[in-house]
């Protein structure tokens, strides 16, 4: 089973190799694992995997004049975070992740086109996956540290509710069941 160190190592590998599908896969794998482990550090790595996949997909990032400098700094942070995880220093690990976030957002800020920044988008999508994997909407929002209102709206834009297993009573059956409530 994947632990924080293993997950961070994979994240570093896929980012270095610019392997977008594997970064997505890592996000999915971590998300499912979190429903069982409730490990928030793992979830942060999963969200970062999604953020990195988005960075690699967008020319506005990798065509930016500061791209090489940004990359160097990210690699330095990744190496430091791996060191911290090896020593099981989770406090330091979390501080380093905050630094990574700061670097990404600084880069994002110069070319941003949407209200939500990359981390917010990644967190919402990850929360959506947590919901689909079984969490209630409030639980998914809490774990991914996103606003429930934002998550509910995001779910409406997905096919999360078009799953056969989620279907129980029909709309008409529910209305029938409720008719005695009304005058």
């Amino acid at each position, binding site marked *: 089973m994947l632990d924080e160190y293993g997950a961070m190592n994979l994240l570093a590998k896929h980012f270095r190799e610019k392997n977008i599908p594997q970064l997505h896969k890592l996000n999915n794998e971590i998300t*499912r694992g979190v*429903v*069982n*482990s*409730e490990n928030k550090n793992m979830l942060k790595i999963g969200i970062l995997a999604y953020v990195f996949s988005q960075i690699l997909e967008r020319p506005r990032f990798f065509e930016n004049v500061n791209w090489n400098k940004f990359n160097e700094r990210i690699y330095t942070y990744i190496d430091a975070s791996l060191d911290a995880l090896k020593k099981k220093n989770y406090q330091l690990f979390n501080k380093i992740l905050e630094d990574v976030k700061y670097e990404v957002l600084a880069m994002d800020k110069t070319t941003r086109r949407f*209200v939500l920044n990359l981390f917010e988008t990644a967190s919402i999508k990850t929360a959506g996956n947590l*919901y*689909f*994997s*079984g*969490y*209630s*909407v*409030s*639980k998914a929002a*809490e774990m991914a540290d996103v*606003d*429930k*209102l934002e998550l*509910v*709206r*995001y*779910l*409406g*834009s997905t096919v*999360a*509710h*078009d*799953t056969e*297993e*989620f*279907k*129980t*009573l*029909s*709309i*008409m059956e*529910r*209305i*029938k*069941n*409720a*008719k*005695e*409530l*009304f*005058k």
Partner: protein
Amino acid sequence: MPKNYSSNIICDSSSLISLVDTGMISLLYMLKERLNGQFLITDGIRDEIVSRPIQSKKYSFGAVVIQKAINDGVLVVLETEFLKKTAQEIMNMTNNTFVLNGKPLNLIHAGEAEILSLMVETNSRTLLIDEKTTRLFIENPEKLYQHLLTQYRGELKMNRTKLVDFKSMFKDTRILRSVELLGIGYMYGFFKQYGPLEKEALKAATYAVKFAGCGVSFEEIEEFLRKDLPKFDEKESRLGLQPIEFKE
């Protein structure tokens, strides 16, 4: 002896968000007039959909709309200090029902447990909720189990004892989603304001609540819209007659 249930509807934030986002809050005003009980929310739900979002640029308008519904008495807020013990009991049942590789899956949040405990403590039968996990727990936990099996590798067990306890607590519970409120509203003439576009307005509103996050599938909506929906005749209803029967 049969339990004497109240006709209150306990509302989760997920449904209120869908209704506010689609401009359908006036439906609650109309249904409040016809409801034999009240639309109840907890103070925790109020914090979620009013107190916190009112401070944000993005969500403050929805928060204002809901606060107005509270001020107008359409939504009634209950303080929930007294619910803690029952909520804890519910959390214990739900979050120990499914066990993956020896570890319980904590699928339900304290907020959802709180509204479920409000149902128990107010002797209410009806829950308005758009999110799927709590709904599946109440209506068909086996389906939730089947879904979890598709999501996880390893040994997934269902703790039947916990499930039996939970089921006995909520055996008479019925669930409504925002989409069903629209259907009920239609039958009471809520969409008459759209004139010849009445049925079209219902159709548009049902899709709108889905896109706003209501846990309903396209298939369910299409099946519903294919039906010849009955109407509750206003005059007859005021005379105390029963609404016309639903066609199968």
